[in-house]
């Protein structure tokens, strides 16, 4: 519930733990971002429960496991790069919280992996859109999450950059053994990237299954949304 408005209801789905890419599709206001925030632990549920790796993390009106103990990363729609920190400081922040001893080596390694080592002393406003995406990804990935939540992260990029970033994200799933929840309203993007699609509507989940099967759905909303 957001104020007096019910955002999500009748939601129930499961996603594999490793190397899974689930896209969450839906019209504006259907609750896609809210779903991600619930999984992250940034919002609490009015009803039901959420499990991550078999552990109940949220229950009715209660956040059992706080966000930072869920081992999830979050790429926000606006990327939420802290403007008063340099690229290096943005990536360093989370590692410092975890009190990891050799964190400087890990940062260097991550920055090299994402090709942003040259930008380490730059402030985030000095970066291009694509570079900002890389920094946001690096900031989340440096903490080695098992699940990465992405809230329309490519919405503001041009076509060429979008294609490059999609490749990189796919690569991350394969190489890092992580799962991704990816919010988008672009069904083509979802079809290309995902192995599971969750289509939300005001009434709840309209479709949950593989991209291949969606074309055979009898649901009129699904057909209309996917332009079948």
């Amino acid at each position: 519930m957001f104020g007096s408005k019910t955002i999500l209801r009748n939601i129930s789905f499961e996603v594999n733990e490793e190397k899974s890419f689930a896209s969450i599709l839906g019209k504006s206001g259907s609750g896609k971002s809210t779903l991600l925030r619930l999984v992250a632990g940034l919002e609490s549920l009015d009803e039901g429960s959420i499990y991550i790796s078999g552990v109940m993390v949220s229950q009715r009106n209660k956040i059992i496991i706080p966000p930072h103990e869920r081992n999830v990363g979050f790429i926000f729609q606006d990327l939420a790069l802290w403007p008063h920190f340099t690229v290096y400081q943005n990536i360093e922040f989370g590692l410092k919280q975890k009190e990891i001893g050799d964190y400087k080596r890990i940062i260097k390694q991550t920055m090299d992996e994402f090709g942003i080592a040259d930008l380490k002393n730059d402030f985030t406003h000095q970066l291009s859109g694509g570079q900002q995406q890389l920094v946001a990804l690096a900031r989340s990935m440096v903490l080695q999450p098992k699940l990465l939540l992405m809230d329309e992260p490519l919405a503001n990029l041009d076509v060429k950059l979008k294609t490059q970033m999609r490749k990189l994200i796919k690569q991350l799933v394969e190489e890092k053994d992580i799962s991704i929840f990816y919010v988008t309203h672009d069904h083509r993007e979802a079809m290309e990237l995902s192995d599971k699609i969750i289509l939300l509507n005001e009434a709840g989940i309209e479709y949950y299954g593989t991209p291949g099967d969606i074309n055979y759905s009898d649901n009129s909303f699904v057909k209309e949304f996917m332009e079948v």
Partner: protein
Amino acid sequence: MNSKAVLLSAAGLFFAAVVLPLCALIFRAFINDGGVAAESLTSVFHKDVLQSIGNSLIISTAVSLSSVLLGCCFAFLFLKTTILFFKFLRLLLLLPLLLPSYVICVAWNDVWLFAGVYKDFIYSLPAVVFILTTIYTPLAAFIIQAGLKNINARMEEAGMMITSYKEVFFKIVLPLLRPALFSSFILIFILSLSEFAVPSYLSIPVFTTEIFIQFSAFYNYSLAITQSIILTSICLLLLLPEKKYLTKEHFFSFGKKTFRFRVFELRNRTLTQIVVMLYIIFTVLVPVGFLTAQTFSKTGSSFLTIIKPLLPSLKDSFFIGIAGAFMITMYGLIFSWLTVQFKIKFLQTFLLLVFAVPSIVIGISLILFYNTPSLSFIYSSKLIILVAFMARFLFISVKIISDSLQQIPVSYTDAACITGAKPFYVFRRITFPLLGESLFTSFFIILIFCLNELSTIIMIYPPGTSLLPVTIFTRTANAPQYVVSGMSLVSLLFTIVILICMFFGKKMLFNQQWRTSR
């Protein structure tokens, strides 16, 4: 205790210190010595009292109308046209708002006496209206400019595809500006209604001077209280319809990307430039110039003889001002946090209502509440001044800080929380640095207001405390004109020095690379 409880306790302290005295005042207005205060209620209909109420309303209406009209012109010229040196001109225009009103009044008095203006004009309603208009025009320009900034260029452009800009201005821009125009009108109306120094200096009987006389000269507390309640009721009634806009709209913007807005080429740029510069020279530079000339025409090189007796007042004013500004900024942060993060929205409305209470009424409520054996430790110390400052200026600080706090995306703190950072660490590393500029601005703006505050302080300052505005104002009655001008000049220089410190301090502290392109 969790953080919300701690912050709410701090807010509770403010209510106990400031709001309780006001509630007690209302109670005393109707109940006097165990009975209904009927006599004082009827005595407000006395001819003299009605005349002072009439004067107050005439002044307030005229000042509000003229300030909003002029402010609208300046806001449009500075924001939406290619007028030259607009930043410098805007800064100069703002000066009268940041100076004590009695300093401006003394300066105009000097100008008019020098120019041989008839005394009938100098000590008249139009003179008060004129002086207050020069003081409040920048406030109107400031608020209307914020309103103009929030009008997306696309709205104007869509209109311009259909009709001329003149039509667009009257049919699209002005209606969209309506909330800003009304808010500035109401604010200026309330501020000029509670103005004390200017009418008092020019011997014009208004409601505030009437209350002051009843309270301080005739010791007719009952009548003074009743009049205070009437004055406060007028202010609050005017304020209520506009409270939504005044509390919700952003008047201050820190790193916030506003909409793109259109800038127009002026057809008669030279002529407009000359008119604007003449207005600023006439209303800002001429009075200040005369103040200076008046001072040095008599004292020559012995300006030090004027400064010397003012040194204790300067010292007291400075330290109490610093303490007040620091405390109000801290409280501003607490209230902003409660409003924005914990969504206790009514707090800002409540502070707005306290802000609308005329300063002289606040003074009376504090005297009556704290002048008791159990609370005399506050009444007889400098604490009473800090309480008065809190009542007067907390809303401004909360407005500055909460506007800034609202502009920090929630995702910034969410992203930090996900990493496991503790709430205080997130506040210290993420929120506080992003709020730094607004805290700094709040501190300096409140410091200037504290240094210049007269109406409340003149009623409550404890023995042994000598504050600059009170010292100057009380000496206006018996000191030669050049001494009064000299002292006003000192006050003006004092404010200018603080403004310069603020300007350079801001440049030094907040000129980091990450801010430069924002």
